[in-house]
């Protein structure tokens, strides 16, 4: 018989600290691996900068140009450099964790509950990223506009006040669900098709998932930059 993968959503490998405090072990482990990987890659890529760049430096330069163009188009020439680190961090972390979930053969490692996967398929990770994004745009607004930031809430007319306030909640919510849902949808599709036909057929779906998950990193970073750009314009 073939080995059929079991479909389960929402089961985790818990690391317990006390009665009420526990961590989702697989998410924490994989995301710290991703962070270490990204940091190592960036340190190695920028260590010996040369006039004629080598392979690794070339890749880091392309990445930098790419992230810079995202921030530049959304925030304009005078402010983008202040918020570029934030946008770049978000982009690299989301890209790294989506690719880590898709490219590393986690199935080889067995856990007693749950399984290793992309950290972004846990809704807590994406919620943290989304909340960080909304904190970042509040911070950007206060830093650049001061108390005049609140004028944004009564534009274009005072009766838009409730809509503008609700928007502050829907922005992180939609960011959160978009990333989480896309990653889970990719993995679920692959799992379902693998349980029907385990050979060859899932490959194009996996390629599509790879493409879609890198696109999601781009979209998350673009939206974060756009939200920041919106409050400081």
């Amino acid at each position, binding site marked *: 018989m073939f080995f059929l993968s079991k479909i389960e*959503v929402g089961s985790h490998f818990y690391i317990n600290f006390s009665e009420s405090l526990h961590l989702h072990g697989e998410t924490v482990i994989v995301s710290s691996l991703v962070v270490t990987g990204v940091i190592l890659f960036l340190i190695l890529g920028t260590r010996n900068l040369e006039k004629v760049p080598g392979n690794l430096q070339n890749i880091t330069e392309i990445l930098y140009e790419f992230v810079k163009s995202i921030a530049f188009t959304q925030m304009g020439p005078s402010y983008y450099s202040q918020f570029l680190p934030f946008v770049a961090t978000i982009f690299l972390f989301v890209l790294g964790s989506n690719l880590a979930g898709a490219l590393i053969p986690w199935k080889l490692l067995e856990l007693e509950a749950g399984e290793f996967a992309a950290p972004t398929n846990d809704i807590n990770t994406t919620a943290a990223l989304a909340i960080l994004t909304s904190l970042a745009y509040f911070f950007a607004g206060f830093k650049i506009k001061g108390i005049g930031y609140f004028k944004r809430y009564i534009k274009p007319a005072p009766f838009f006040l409730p809509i503008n306030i609700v928007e502050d909640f829907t922005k992180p919510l939609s960011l959160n*669900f978009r990333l989480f*849902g896309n990653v*889970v*949808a990719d993995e679920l599709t692959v799992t379902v098709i693998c349980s029907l036909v385990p050979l060859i057929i899932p490959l194009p779906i996996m390629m599509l998932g790879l493409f*879609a998950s890198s*696109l999601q990193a*781009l979209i998350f970073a673009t939206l974060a930059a756009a939200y920041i750009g919106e409050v400081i314009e």
Partner: protein
Amino acid sequence: MVDSIISAASVIAAAIAVGFAGLGPGIGQGNAAGQAVEGIARQPEAEGKIRGTLLLSLAFMESLTIYGLVVALSVLFANPFVG
């Protein structure tokens, strides 16, 4: 008894959620892709730019479907109504 009715209702609700969430964005994506093809046919040299914008906006529309999927998943796997 009540639980089985809730389970049955949840399965139907999940199907409806995904089905209708796919409907609108499907129409929207078709429109966007059609317009993009028209744009490329009219101005082949702008293909790269059009393709980038198209992919980005397709992903935005896709996220609407994903919202439906998230609702369906939470109804199927993390149902708040089954005690």
